[in-house]
């Protein structure tokens, strides 16, 4: 028992050291170690441009075959990797201790993943995608076909290499530089549930696309059609783990350098590995106007100031996050105060307001959820008390007639008693 506790202590201490070192060097929100699982080590060379861009950004890649029997995501309860690239669409099962649940637990522990499927993707890959809220066309032979927006290099043939330019409008996900050339895609399509707010379509098919087996004749209407088909989707879990799922492994390959693919995959992978769009809120402070110490309790009708600093990770350092729509709520079952906070453009957001004339246990709430950004969700409990017995006004001007009345009655009674008793 004691030894275990010692070990734990040591672990905690080393963690602390790591954390403090991380802070000192201004480290980002995520580690830099990725595990790349491939079907075939040839992928390493056929997709070298993509891997090269990852490595150039300082990510540390470890290539393993998906059925490597020594595969493991964690050891002694610690995850060995900070992210996962699953480029093994046809693997029926992973080697070692890794299976579908292990991958999902990896994500739920707050790690990121890029998953590339392909037509004839295995049930394993489909299962992982389903758990992330994405459904591939269940026909294993199906591919996305578009007879209008196909790649110009492939005029003849079955039009399965399609040119996608229906990209999501978000600088956070795709970078501020516009992707000019269309993104070439050959692979399986998928659908996302529009009511699922965690999943976003990054690259959608054009309205003329449909998903079917290109080798057979179409017997019944295809189940996935038009812009309902998503080609590449992202999912940001509630714990801010990010997952990119693409219906095509080919998308990441070196073959389509001319097209917008390289820029597309580079920019989306930056987003996935938290090099962009990661917000952190620190230094929450509140105090009464004119004071600096944080009280444990406010009184009704106090004037208070609230401030919080919000920074965004730029890939190399924490930069102040600038926006004009960060709101503070003073909340007890419903917001009593809802106010935009003003920013000094250096990351500090602050505002001041009057505590409502209601006592109870309130919360300072900042709920900031924006497309592509990690969610900022702060809640800090603070009780608000009524006036103390000696905080009320002692003498009320409008009550002076009553004071006068009572004292004059007392005086009159005294005089009356005196007169009654001694006048004879």
């Amino acid at each position, binding site marked *: 028992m004691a030894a275990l506790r010692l070990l734990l202590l040591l672990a905690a201490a080393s963690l602390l050291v790591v954390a403090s070192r991380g802070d000192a060097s201004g480290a980002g929100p995520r580690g830099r170690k990725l595990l790349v699982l491939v079907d075939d080590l040839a992928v390493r060379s056929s997709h070298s441009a993509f891997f090269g861009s990852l490595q150039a950004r300082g990510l540390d890649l470890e290539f393993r075959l998906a059925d490597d029997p020594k595969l493991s995501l964690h050891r002694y309860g610690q995850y060995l990797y900070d992210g996962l690239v699953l480029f093994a669409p046809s693997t029926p099962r992973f080697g070692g201790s890794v299976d579908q649940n292990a991958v999902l637990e990896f994500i739920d522990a707050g790690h990121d993943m890029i998953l590339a499927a392909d037509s004839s993707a295995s049930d394993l890959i489909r299962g992982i995608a389903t758990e992330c809220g994405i459904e591939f066309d269940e026909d294993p032979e199906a591919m996305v076909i578009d007879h209008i927006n196909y790649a110009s290099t492939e005029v003849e043939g079955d039009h399965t290499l399609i040119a996608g330019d229906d990209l999501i409008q978000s600088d956070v996900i795709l970078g501020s530089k516009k992707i000019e050339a269309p993104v070439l895609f050959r692979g399986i399509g998928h659908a996302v549930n529009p009511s699922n707010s965690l999943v976003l379509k990054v690259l959608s098919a054009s309205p003329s696309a449909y998903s079917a087996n290109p080798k057979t004749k179409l017997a019944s209407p295809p*189940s996935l059609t038009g812009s309902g088909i998503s080609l590449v989707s992202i999912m940001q879990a509630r714990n801010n783990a990010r997952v990119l799922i693409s219906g095509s492994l080919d998308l990441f390959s070196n073959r389509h350098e001319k097209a917008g693919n390289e820029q597309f995959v580079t920019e989306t992978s930056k987003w996935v590995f938290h090099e962009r769009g990661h917000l952190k809120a620190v230094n929450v402070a509140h105090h009464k106007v004119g004071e600096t110490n944080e009280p444990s309790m406010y009184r009704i009708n106090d004037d208070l100031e609230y401030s919080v600093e919000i920074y965004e990770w730029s890939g190399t350092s924490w930069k102040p996050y600038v926006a004009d729509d960060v709101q503070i709520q003073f909340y007890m079952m419903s917001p009593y105060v809802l106010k935009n906070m003003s920013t000094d453009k250096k990351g500090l957001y602050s505002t001041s307001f009057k505590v409502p004339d209601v006592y109870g246990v309130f919360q300072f709430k900042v709920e900031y959820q924006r497309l592509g950004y990690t969610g900022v969700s702060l809640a800090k409990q603070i009780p608000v008390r009524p006036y103390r017995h000696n905080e009320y006004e002692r003498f009320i001007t409008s009550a002076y007639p009553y004071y006068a009345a009572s004292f004059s009655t007392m005086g009159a009674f005294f005089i009356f008693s005196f007169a009654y008793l001694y006048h004879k």
Partner: protein
Amino acid sequence: MAETEADAAAAPSAAPGRLRNAFGGVLCAFTLILIGVLAFSIRLFSVIKYESVIHEFDPYFNYRVTQFLSKNGIYEFWNWFDDRTWYPLGRVIGGTVYPGLTLTAGSIWWLVNALNIPLSVETVCVFTAPIFSAFASWATYLLTKEAKGTGAGLMAAAILGMVPSYISRSVAGSYDNEAVAIFALVFTFYLYVKTLNTGSLFYATLNALSYFYMVCSWGGYTFIINLIPMHVLLCIVTGRYSSRLYIAYAPLVILGTLLAALVPVVGFNAVLTSEHFASFLVFIILHVVAFVSYIKGLLTPRLYKMAMTLVITVGMAVCFAVVAILVALVASSPTKGWSGRSLSLLDPTYASKYIPIIASVSEHQPPTWPSYFMDINVLAFLVPAGIISCFLPLSDASSFMVLYLVTAVYFSGVMVRLMLVLAPAACILSGIALSSAFDVLTRSMKFQLSKLFDDGSAISGNGSTEATSASAVNTNSSKSENKTEKSEAAPKEKSSKKNRRKEKEVTESVPAKSKKEKRLSVLPLEASVIGTLLLIILGGFYVVHCVWAAAEAYSAPSIVLTSRSREGLHVFDDFREAYAWLSHNTDVDDKVASWWDYGYQTTAMANRTVIVDNNTWNNTHIATVGTAMSSPEKAAWEIFDSLDVKYVLVVFGGLVGYPSDDINKFLWMVRIGGGEFPHIKEPDYLRDGQYRVDAQATPTMLNCLMYKLCYYRFVETDGKGFDRVRGYEIGKKHFKLTHFEEVFTTHHWMVRIYKLKPQKNRVRAKLRKLKSGSKSSSTLAAGRKKNPWQ
């Protein structure tokens, strides 16, 4: 009983004169001390059988408040805003609590610590109630003595010291308002009667102060402020108006109301609510009567008659106007100016019709007949005799006793917890009855015996005089009554009784007429001996019953349960186990939801924030929790999540057969929840009007959160899911929880604690079946499939 017998025997045996009085006084004081010790020690069964621990629910709150008071001082207590209860509304403790008990125990604690006796706050709280029950029996002595003399006083004190009804509320550890309030109640009545007998302003002022203490202690003070006006009115109507009556009542209303308004929880209610109107009305009537009698003395009879007709015509008009205004004012408020609890007293069916939250409390139910026998035992039969004795002769004080008894009987019939108010009245009247009976019996025994031994008439006369002295106080007081009534101008004449008695004995001024009277009420020797024996046996039964009730019935602290079986004693300490788990394994700011019964205990023992507690001040909040408990899992999760609840606590007795568990309370949750949120309907939980959780139960019942939390994994205990409280197998045995997870279940499964699962990190897509139809319909189907309550 032994003391009173000794007392009864002591009076005739003592020699006349100063020595006799001194001996009687000492004996009386000694008896009173013994009664105090008896009252204190009969309440210690709970400490001896269990441990020195606070009992039940409300005492835990009082204990917590006392702790706060002893730690932070009176001003912090006064301004205490408690953010750990009624989350997120909070509760202003200082302004919503009757501070009398807390301040009393806090002062005792401060005093003993100042004397370097290091008692813990808990110890002081545990023993406050027994100490005050000793005080209460002394106060009863004083009150009864005012009405019927020392003998009756001692008798009543001894009876009150061990009356089971009072024991049930004041055993060691039962640290509740009633513990000190009964003392305050009786003492206030004593001071009122004392003022009435003496006409002294000093006692009138003391009376107002005592009334203030009562207001501080208990909401039952409204009983005093309605009973005393009723008595005053009775005195006026029966032509017993005197200046003593005025002095007894007018200062009480003025000072008492002013003082009552100082208590934050009462505040302006002291002049605003209908409960207090009677006192003001009688105050006005008293002044009119006083004025009329003053005028009467001033004017000649003819002038007086003229003035009367004038005043009556004008007065009637004014009265009608005032009454009309009052009626309009009162009618404009929805509850007619009465608080819910008072209304349910006046109309016993009110609560069950309109306020389920009041009706749901077991102690607000009307009592059953056996509970009278249980709680006041033989007193129920002695009380009528006491009433008769009070009418022989009727004085202001004895009429007050009768009035007190009659009203208390009515109130005890409405609410079982007001049996407590009846107990002192029953004790006083029984004391009077027993004392008069002993009086008559011993006197006739003495008379007959003396006649047996000597037949000289002179000696017999002497003997009878001596026997009379046993009831000297009675005749004395009644006589003084008459005298003072005749001569109002001489309040001094009613001097202290000792002096008067002495004076009387010295002058031997017993008139021949009274001698004759006494001889008439003499009984045969055999009858009086048998009567005395029977009364002693009756008293013996009473004592046996009281001790049994104190030891067996009323000493269980209800947080620790025991049961006897062949293997021996089983102790169920599940509640404290659960609260200890909460305090050690959850975060300080975590919120725990449970039915309101367990709110006080959770805050006091586990120190965790609760949503609702036993101070049922916000019906909507309780209804919210009731709704959550009666909702399906997902809806309940949403309600609890919106209240930031992290843990849900349920009490389940099905495994060990503990009947007052949450499943048996559940219909009240449905009713109270449905009262605010109409989508919860009681018939949905009943099968053909019957409440059941077996296979016949409705699906709504079997899918509600309370059922699931209580019976989750229950089938694993015996393989059948047999509920020992309900006595059948439960309806749904195998199910899983989707939004809650079990984190702790106590040893006997009496308390089960669940944690709200966090929202899912990811949202899973549907699993499309092959050959599924159109996309949208399958999404819907999948959505339905995910629905946890299908």
